[in-house]
């Protein structure tokens, strides 16, 4: 099975969610995780493969822009159109406060390029919300057919 964590951007809170899902913890310097704040990767709009979990499910992070519900709907329908089901691909949105502001900062960075400053600002937004991200991941794990915890 493939599990795609989606959010406004795929290189910030969603990336952290994939790491917490996979390794049950986040490193102290989580801003150094591969792809964190990588605008080039985000701009491509493609799902970012992170790793396989212990059940050999492939885990991805994906940024879908401001309208998460719309993107989830399209992805869920596309899965069916392609003759697949939730057994093949699961989509899990990860939401935090200020997610649209992060998206905006991320777009701004692509034009102005103050990468370090931008990442520091985004880190300030995300840091207090780490427990919210972790909770969403844990809630999701509970819903999986063969609980991965």
């Amino acid at each position, binding site marked *: 099975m*493939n599990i795609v964590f989606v959010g406004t951007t795929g290189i910030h809170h969603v990336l952290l969610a994939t790491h917490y899902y996979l390794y049950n913890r986040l490193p102290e310097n989580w801003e150094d995780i591969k792809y964190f704040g990588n605008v080039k990767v985000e701009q491509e709009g493609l799902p970012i493969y992170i790793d396989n979990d212990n059940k050999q499910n492939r885990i991805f992070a994906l940024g879908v822009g401001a309208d998460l*519900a719309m993107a989830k709907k*399209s992805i869920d329908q596309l*899965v069916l159109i*392609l003759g697949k089901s939730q057994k093949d691909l699961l989509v899990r949105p990860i939401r935090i406060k200020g997610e649209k502001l992060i998206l905006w900062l991320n777009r701004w960075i692509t034009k102005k390029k103050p990468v370090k400053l931008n990442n520091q600002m985004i880190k300030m937004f995300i840091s207090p919300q780490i427990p919210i991200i972790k909770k969403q991941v844990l809630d999701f794990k509970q819903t999986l057919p063969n609980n991965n915890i």
Partner: protein
Amino acid sequence: MKIIYHCFGGSHSSVTAAAIHLGMLDKHKTPSGEELISLPYYDKTNNQDFGSIRFMGEDKQGNQVYVLGKKSLGDRYSNILLGIADILGAKEELMVINCMAEINWIMKIGGFTSRRLRLTWIGRPLVSQGTIWSYNSLTRLVEKTLLELKNKMVKK
């Protein structure tokens, strides 16, 4: 093969392109406003339809043609859908075509007035006239798509 034409609202340019693809509209003859309005989904969508991949029909080769409204996400949305298809090992079964480059300001104003403001009596004539003016561009887009489709089928 599945072909998805997408635009802002999935209501005008994508529907017209899909209709040309399916032969519902003659690509050698510019349609009238009435012909456009009579197309399924043309200027008939609402906010709940954003993100819905709606089936328009099957072409002569058996390819399924769909339309989609994805707001202002542009080519990024194509990549998202193709990326998901790739994960599922079905990238070669999918073509995603962005119709946004083929639309004009009259279509934008007419579409906004009709769909967002619900002033159909003003918006609908404007958007259908805009579509008529963009018809040649949309036809070229569909022809390019059909050529790509043919090449893909040959490779298969």
